[in-house]
């Protein structure tokens, strides 16, 4: 008798299983990694903190709307600390997929910590929400399991810089360009892109100095003198924040007066650069204008002032810096939210289809989200700007290119 009841129960459970499978899950599990220590902590923590802010905000509203189940479902963020260690990151990405069985997989920040996830996600047929891993090698036609959320892919990122030099540059008298870059994937790829755009423009400008140096370089004195010897009209320095700090300090120390000088991080980590280089050393430097300075019109999510206010409320001590990376994390969150609101199931290929359907349509505080066919981000371009004195002892951004977003004229040559 007991055996018959047990068999009936098992049969009943088996019959009930398909119905249960269609039931909405109690929570949507989003798996991600962050680096609380190590060389990538400074870029990873703002991105991760922004993602957490979004999770808390949505859960306070009862969850995120999931079209597949036509209801709001709370989010569970499963996050591990990879400590900037790539071998650890590999293990943890695998843990998220195989043990935690997350519904959505989100990479850590930067290309080096995203790289281990690319192959793992593909192997497990999980779609990877790549936050800021801009490495060109991640995106190929034969890998449908990745898309870049928040930064432009490195191969197009410096387009506004090159376009300004080739289109507006000759009118200003810029003919000779010096290109100095750190030999890592992020800045090396941007250097390649600058060369390519300048060559393709067929403009009357030429690169008279082209040099890569190790990322660990901390003294640029000799290099600056070598650049001066070539008498360039414009100098492009592509490096990480420590490189920019050392380079700008050395430029001021040796008294080099470059007429036009571009660095990446005065725009991306302005507060850090101000602390280490000083306001005077950054005056009239050209850089990327971060979205936090632009107030893009949005059709989804918070506008920049609202997001900034929420950030300041969440981190009143200012220990996690607000800026480019914080916006990147929130942008990823918005793409995820919008994806869940249009995907008809949580199947990974359906998630991909939903993400790609947002291309060109989704406008966030980071600009227009746009993907190429391989998943590389080709929207959200950062305009070229110049740091000018704000009259109160600080600095302000003046966007100079493209012209449709320009807020002022470039100061050339630098005083």
């Amino acid at each position: 008798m007991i055996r018959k009841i047990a068999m009936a129960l098992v049969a009943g459970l088996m019959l009930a299983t398909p119905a249960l499978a269609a039931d909405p899950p109690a929570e949507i599990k989003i798996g991600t990694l962050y680096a609380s220590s190590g060389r990538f902590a400074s870029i990873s923590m703002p991105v991760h903190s922004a993602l957490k802010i979004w999770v808390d905000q949505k859960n306070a509203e009862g969850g995120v709307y999931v079209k597949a189940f036509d209801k709001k479902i709370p989010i569970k963020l499963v996050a591990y600390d990879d400590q900037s260690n790539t071998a650890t990151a590999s293990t943890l990405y695998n843990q998220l997929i195989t043990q935690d069985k997350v519904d959505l997989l989100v990479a850590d920040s930067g290309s080096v910590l995203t790289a281990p996830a690319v192959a793992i996600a593909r192997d497990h047929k999980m779609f990877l929400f790549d936050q800021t891993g801009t490495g060109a090698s991640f995106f190929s036609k034969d890998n449908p399991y990745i898309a870049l959320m928040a930064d432009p892919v490195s191969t197009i990122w410096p387009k506004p810089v090159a376009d300004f030099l080739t289109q507006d540059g000759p009118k200003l008298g810029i003919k000779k360009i010096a290109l100095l870059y750190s030999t890592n994937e992020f800045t090396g790829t941007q250097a390649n892109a600058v060369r390519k755009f300048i060559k393709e423009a067929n403009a009357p400008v030429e690169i008279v100095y082209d040099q890569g140096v190790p990322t660990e370089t901390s003294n640029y004195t000799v290099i600056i003198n070598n650049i001066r010897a070539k008498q360039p009209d414009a100098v492009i320095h592509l490096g990480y924040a420590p490189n920019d700090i050392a380079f700008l300090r050395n430029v001021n120390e040796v008294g080099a007066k470059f007429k036009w000088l571009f660095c990446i991080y005065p725009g991306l980590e302005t507060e850090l650069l101000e602390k280490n280089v000083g306001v005077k050393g950054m005056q009239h430097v050209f850089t990327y204008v971060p979205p936090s300075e632009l107030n893009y019109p949005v059709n989804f999510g918070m506008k920049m002032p609202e997001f900034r206010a929420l950030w300041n409320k969440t981190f009143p001590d200012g220990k996690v810096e607000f800026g480019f990376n914080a916006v990147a994390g929130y942008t990823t969150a918005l793409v995820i939210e919008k994806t869940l609101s249009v995907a008809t199931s949580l199947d990974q290929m359906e998630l991909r289809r939903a993400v790609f359907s947002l291309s060109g349509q989704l406008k966030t505080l980071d600009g227009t989200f746009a993907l190429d066919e391989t998943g590389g981000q080709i929207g959200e371009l950062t305009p070229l700007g110049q740091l000018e004195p704000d009259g109160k002892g600080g600095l302000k951004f003046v966007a100079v290119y493209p012209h449709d977003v320009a807020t002022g004229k470039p100061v050339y040559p630098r005083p």
Partner: protein
Amino acid sequence: MPSALRHLLFIVAPLLAVFAILPSVYENHLMLFNFVVFLILAQGVNVIYGFTGYLPFGYVGFFGGGAYGFAVMVMHLHASAPVAVVVAGLAGVALGLLLSPLLRLSGAYFAIANLAAALAVLHFVANPALETITRGPYGVSLTATFNPNAAYAAALVVLALTMGAVVFLKNSRFGLALQSVREDPVSAAMAGVSVVRMRVIAWLASALIAGLAGGVYAWYVSVFFPDNVFSGTFSIFAIVFALFGGVATIVGPIVGVLLLYGVYNLIGFTTPQYFQLIYGLLIMGLVLFLPAGLVSLATRRGWHVP
């Protein structure tokens, strides 16, 4: 039964069997793969440090060199993955030969010079001028050979070979000669041991092991940058694991990897916020109370540790 056979039967074979079976019962294969890679690297450190006394802080140079040897073979010569792994090992040996003059140094001087050499290899590989060969700093994507299961099996083969080499060193006159060189090179030379030849062979064997490990690692991960495979963490972990268990033994590095890397993952999955604290305390405790590694708990009592 000869002791070498006993060691193979009761230490190496069970270890390999466990790691061959585990993927069928535990899904995080990459974690298991990392265990195998660190077992290989810790034993590689054991070969050079345990048996000759040279502490290779730049051991990752061979590992990264092997990974890029694998990548170059696959990208340019379209070699099959097993052939590329063999070439990865040979790339490690070639680097070992190139750096063999470092063996003229000793102690801290060797360790620092070795670290500098690894950085030099990294910057050589990551040089944009070599983009057409190594892809420079832009990273490689080896989708053509991507096969995690086969790479895991290859890692087990490399582990078997490495363990076989350590068993040989532990049970042969050659290994004894190496240890005599480590303890007192002058006396060893007086006894007829060719000190230079012994050191170079151990150095190249160690480089071969790391190169092979780098090859299988590249096979498994398939997308990587120079920073990924030349990360100093590989050297530090391999050295710490080997020292934690106890070098110049077969089981010491195994115990070190299983315990310390196990704890590492356990903390990483459960209480990452205490990671540095717990791990730091463990290593400090080891240095203060067990400088000869965990196996010294047994050897102090007069027990024989293979």
